């Protein structure tokens, strides 16, 4: 525990100590497991140890991994809801401005004073019935786009490469191996202790992963 490395902040550690001649700065430490149940048990231990910035990589979805990793409910649904609200608002403005018969107060910007009432099929101006499919469709469209967009952004995609791929063994993640990667910026990360911790969980191979050399 008296080691100077662990006293430094993760940022300092990344910037100074670990930059070497041949490799980029330290990204984290990776551990290879050979079965889903092993990696599941290891993930529970990592969660209980208090790691925050880490991930589990498996060739297929492992049921219950969310709980094993201690991940809370996803925040993605918030963006979906925002998408739906945006869609309905856009649809309302689109229909209202282009077909309704209205008079706005003077302080409203000039470009909103369209007032272009449109007779469609003899129905009243801006009747709610024909508007609902448009509300509905645009709400769905915007929900889908917002969800996909937020999903990519929250996963930091798209990107060209990931430091994990600098570790040769990691290629097996799409085949038959299971990996836990704890990032160096995790507050509990220690260059000396974390590999030992991962080995104690039954990892077959543990290795430091470095980012690309700049």
């Amino acid at each position, binding site marked *: 525990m008296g080691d100077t490395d662990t006293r430094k902040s993760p940022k300092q550690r990344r910037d100074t100590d670990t930059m070497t001649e041949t490799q980029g700065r330290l990204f984290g430490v990776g551990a290879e497991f050979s079965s889903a149940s092993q990696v599941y048990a290891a993930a529970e231990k990592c969660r209980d140890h208090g790691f925050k910035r880490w991930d589990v990589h498996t060739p297929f979805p492992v049921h219950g991994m969310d709980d094993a990793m201690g991940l809370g409910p996803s925040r993605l649904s918030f963006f979906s809801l925002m998408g739906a609200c945006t869609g309905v608002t856009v649809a309302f403005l689109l229909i209202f401005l282009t077909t309704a018969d209205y008079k706005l107060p003077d302080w409203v910007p000039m470009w909103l004073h369209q007032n272009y009432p449109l007779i469609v099929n003899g129905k009243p101006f801006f009747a709610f019935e024909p508007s*609902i499919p448009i509300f509905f469709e645009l709400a769905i469209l915007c929900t889908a786009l917002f969800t996909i967009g937020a999903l990519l952004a929250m996963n930091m995609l798209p990107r060209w490469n990931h430091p994990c791929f600098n570790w040769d063994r990691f290629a097996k993640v799409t085949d038959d191996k299971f990996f836990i990667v704890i990032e160096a910026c995790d507050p509990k990360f220690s260059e000396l202790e974390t590999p030992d911790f991962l080995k104690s969980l039954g990892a077959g191979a543990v290795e430091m992963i470095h980012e690309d050399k700049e």
Partner: protein
Amino acid sequence: MSETSHKTIPKFDPAKAGNLPKLFLGAGALGLLGTLAGFAVAPKQAAFSYLWAFVYAFTLCAGSLFWVLLHHAVDADWTVVVRRFLEKVAGLFPYLALLFLPVVFSAPMIYEWMTVDPGTDVLLDHKAVFLDGGRNGAGFFYYGRAFFYFAFFMGAATLYKKFSVAQDADGNPHLTNKMRHMAYGMIPFFAASITFFAFDYLMALDYHWFSTMWGVYIFAGSAQSSMALLIVISNACRRAGYLDGVMSVEHNHIMGKLLFAFTVFWAYITFSQYFLIYYANIPEETWFFHHRNTNSWQWLSAVLVFGHFLLPFCLLITQPAKRDGRRLFWACGVVLTMHLLDLYWIIMPQKQINEALHAAGSLQAAVAKTGSIESLHLAPHILDLCSLLGVVGIMGWLFLKSLAQDAIYPVRDPRLPNSINLKN
């Protein structure tokens, strides 16, 4: 193995349910007696009230059969712990067929086309092949169809109950495959039966009117409300301790999701039906909604929009609401009540329309003054309550009786462990 499993078969014990079976039986007997008296005093009102109560029970049973068929057809495993409730509700179909007989006998008082002479209404003459009435009753084809619907519903429900209970005894996985293969063949028959039942007994209330979405509209209400009924029954049994270590909050979550999905589905179908009729603007079609938006009926129409869709939608939209039994229970109460009002809204205005048309001679004369039938008013009748208590009470009592006969969940279904360990 079989020795121990026989000892631990969990069964519903009516003695532990307190006064519930007696309450159901009492309400049912009183309600049916009241309805019987109603048929003597005010036969028309009694006929309409009884049809309403009967269709409510019918949709709940048919919806339950749908969930059983769906469970087997898609080879689901989460449903196993609650499947027995669905099988038992659907298994009430033989009794429902008995309760259908009063509808058959009172049909000429409900369906105008049965008393219209051939040749007097050109629109009816065109439909005479399908609605073969005109002799103060209907013809062979009309009642023959009804016989087929009930034969199918009774047969399917009884078979599924039989096989499922047989598996409790021997745990034979072959029965699971058999029930699955049966489901593929039965789904088209189910769709046809519920669609044409809805055509024959609900859409035919107004023989001028037609809607091609009618079948799926009635189906949407059935599936939604029977899911609500399943949630209520399974949670009641869970609270009573029958499903300890078997049913968990995960099952509530998944049933809540389905209830939410079918709430949206009902709204989608209902709105689509309304929207297409509104847009096409064909008089024979628009009258249906015009009548139901006259006077106090339009309040009920508004209640359906907000109560049948928006309220359950808002109640169920968040994840905690689907996992919390109490909140789910309230949403189910809303859905079951609104389904009742939905059917009321479909059936009851027709009684007043029929009376107004008889008084005025024709629709044109009836609406000549103000453009709508002024005598249309929301007019709840004591016979509505009697019929509802009668049908629901008797069905509830029969359900509890039949639930006590076998294990409360399929104890030896090969998928039971998967269902118990369900994770969303």
